């Protein structure tokens, strides 16, 4: 018997006295790895949605572990709204290069420039990602698309399958989902259809952070507390930028903040925070009385079914 694995498992499994326990992180990791390997075994052209946000970073980490010591059999895809945080884009490019992965980037800006999409009056580009995403999936004939969505994020997501079938329009029909039993995932699809796959379905925000701490995964710096110029809009602290802020009546101030989620700058708010290390972040999340989307996402406050509507249209 080599190493400490057995010993630590014994400590964890104390409740049963069995030497064969696993921690919740080990169970979740094993489940996600199983999902990645199922897709590799059953699909022709899988791709990982990779934004440089923490959930996609954890997905990539798990996928690399699933196939080590062989290289990852998937490429990466990012839909760039044109309003992304530069620190996050830098991290994205660095990771893709470091792991020698092909990174496809679809630019919302290109669609706006040639008239296929129009800027929304509120300036947010999150809903505009759907069309470039679907176009890229069609162009490259991707048949499995990994997303970092978690069921704990939002109540429409709570009813999402791990393998979620999308028709040729990318639409999600909650009434036509396949029942998902045991760990038997059914990825069969017709030409033109694809399957969205969510390996982190059963993870919570806290699990993600505990796993990042445990695996010592590097994140973009904006997830940790820093000083930043921000202004107040719709109950959130937004960062200034070309996307359209601040307006005349909005004033910039310097605050200690960090980001709990990372998305389009126009609708992702920072939270007041002094959590500049991962342990402090975990402590902060454990004590938080707000969900990460409630704290930071303007797009989900639009209506009771905002996420459901976007998902139906083919959003992540």
């Amino acid at each position, binding site marked *: 018997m080599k190493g400490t694995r057995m010993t630590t498992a014994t400590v964890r499994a104390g409740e049963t006295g069995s030497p064969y326990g696993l921690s919740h992180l080990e169970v979740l990791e094993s489940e996600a790895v199983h999902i990645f390997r199922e897709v590799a075994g059953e699909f022709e052209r899988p791709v990982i949605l990779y934004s440089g946000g923490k959930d996609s970073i954890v997905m990539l980490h798990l996928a690399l572990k699933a196939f080590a010591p062989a290289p990852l059999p998937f490429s990466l895809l990012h839909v760039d709204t044109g309003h992304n945080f530069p620190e996050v884009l830098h991290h994205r490019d660095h990771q893709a290069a470091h792991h020698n992965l092909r990174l496809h980037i679809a630019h919302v800006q290109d669609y706006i420039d040639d008239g296929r999409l129009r800027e929304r009056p509120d300036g947010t580009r999150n809903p505009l990602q759907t069309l470039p995403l679907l176009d890229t999936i069609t162009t490259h004939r991707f048949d499995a698309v990994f997303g970092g969505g978690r069921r704990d994020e939002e109540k429409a997501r709570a009813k999402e399958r791990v393998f979620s079938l999308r028709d040729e329009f990318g639409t999600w029909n909650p009434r036509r989902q396949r*029942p998902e039993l045991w760990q038997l995932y059914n990825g069969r699809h017709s030409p033109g259809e694809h399957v969205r796959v969510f390996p982190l379905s059963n993870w919570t925000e806290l699990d993600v952070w505990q796993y990042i701490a445990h695996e010592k995964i590097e994140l973009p710096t904006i997830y940790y507390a820093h000083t930043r110029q921000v202004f107040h809009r719709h109950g959130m602290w937004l960062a200034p930028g070309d996307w359209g802020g601040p307006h005349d009546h909005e004033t910039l101030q310097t605050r200690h903040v960090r980001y709990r989620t990372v998305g389009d700058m126009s609708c992702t708010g920072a939270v007041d925070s002094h959590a500049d290390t991962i342990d402090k972040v975990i402590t902060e999340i454990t004590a938080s009385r707000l969900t990460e989307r409630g704290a930071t996402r303007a797009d989900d406050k639009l209506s009771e079914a905002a996420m459901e509507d976007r998902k139906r249209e083919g959003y992540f």
Partner: protein
Amino acid sequence: MSSTGTSTIDTGDAALAATSLLRFATAGSVDDGKSTLVGRLLHDSKSVLTDQLEAVERASLDRGQDAPDLALLTDGLRAEREQGITIDVAYRYFATPRRRFILADTPGHVQYTRNMVTGASTAELAVVLVDARNGVVEQTRRHAAVAALLRVPHVVLAVNKMDLVDYREGVFAAIAAEFTRYAGELGVPEITAIPISALQGDNVVTASARMDWYGGPTVLEHLETVPVSHDPSGDPARFPVQYVIRPQTPELPDYRGYAGQIASGVFRTGDRITVLPSGRTSTVEGIDALGQSVDVAWAPQSVTLRLADDLDISRGDLIAPAQASVRPSQDQTATVCHVADRPLKPGDRVLLKHATRTVKAIVKDIPSRLTLDDLSQHPVPGELVANDIGRVVLRTAEALPIDAYADSRRTGSFLLIDPADGTTLTAGMAGDAFAEAARDVKEAEAAADDEGWDF
């Protein structure tokens, strides 16, 4: 300890790191107070956050309700909220300092048997709710039958609305006795009955001051302490190969590993193994557990096995101990739950997915359908429609090493799939598992004649 080690003890990520995970399912209808129970579990364990509660309060006000309707926390889809029903399985996540929970919240009505079956398929514990005023009713028996059929190891009977029967011990004791006898005869190995009032909060998270005659755990205490994993060393060792890892890099020109998740049991280096269905044998030379080499691994770990011999092994093969009892066969008999809207008929040509292998199959016969409410058998039903439970005889194009579901939930289960459009048709459990038990019950009852209970 390597840098990719999996210890959660030495990294300092304190409080919640060393917790185990429990997957459980709840079955019951709105009338039984299921949503209230789930809402209270989430709320009293402080898993409902301020913005979620505000959203529920806002929505409740919009609907003209005075108090926040906790059921809105779990009804995710627009149609569900508009119609006030639950259509689908909703997964909920919460944690206490002792344990992380994944709750499959399933609607309890008869037309949603498939959702209960789905929720129970991965559950280690099922909570069955009854209204203390009504006791064990048809629906309760159906829920017990689903838990027994899916081999959920732990069942909790939550006798709810104790406040409406003046918290009387006798009411609880009679219901608990009736249910325990019924579920026990179906083969449910462990039953825990708890008297609660979800509305008042009695015995859900905190112990009730109004039922001092009850000395057992609250629902949450029980969820926190029930053993999540039994000892896997007594289970049949099963390793379905998902993917062959061959880096073929200059550093690793000859590495060949079989990637998969241990479905059942324990594997050790040095174990003699056989590869099914080919029957070739070899020895486990090494086990790579996501970045570190180990000598022993167990379900449900995802690992990569390396073998001493160069065999022709690919996705769909099953690695098992050399002396494994499972024999690949083209003929399978199973208890199934039909989950698709189109019916299943004898003669149907389908695909069968077992573990990591998908093969063609023909439905040879559907000898019977089972009514879960009273366990009555209906011979030669002609077809199975959505939410039906029945017996099915199958012939597969290739021999499959399917275990009896009673021995292994993971390698005793399979799906039938429509080859035309990929629809998941039917969930199958191989062997006689539950139908046998049910038949025994019926026969015992027939033999007991006038003493039979009210099925």
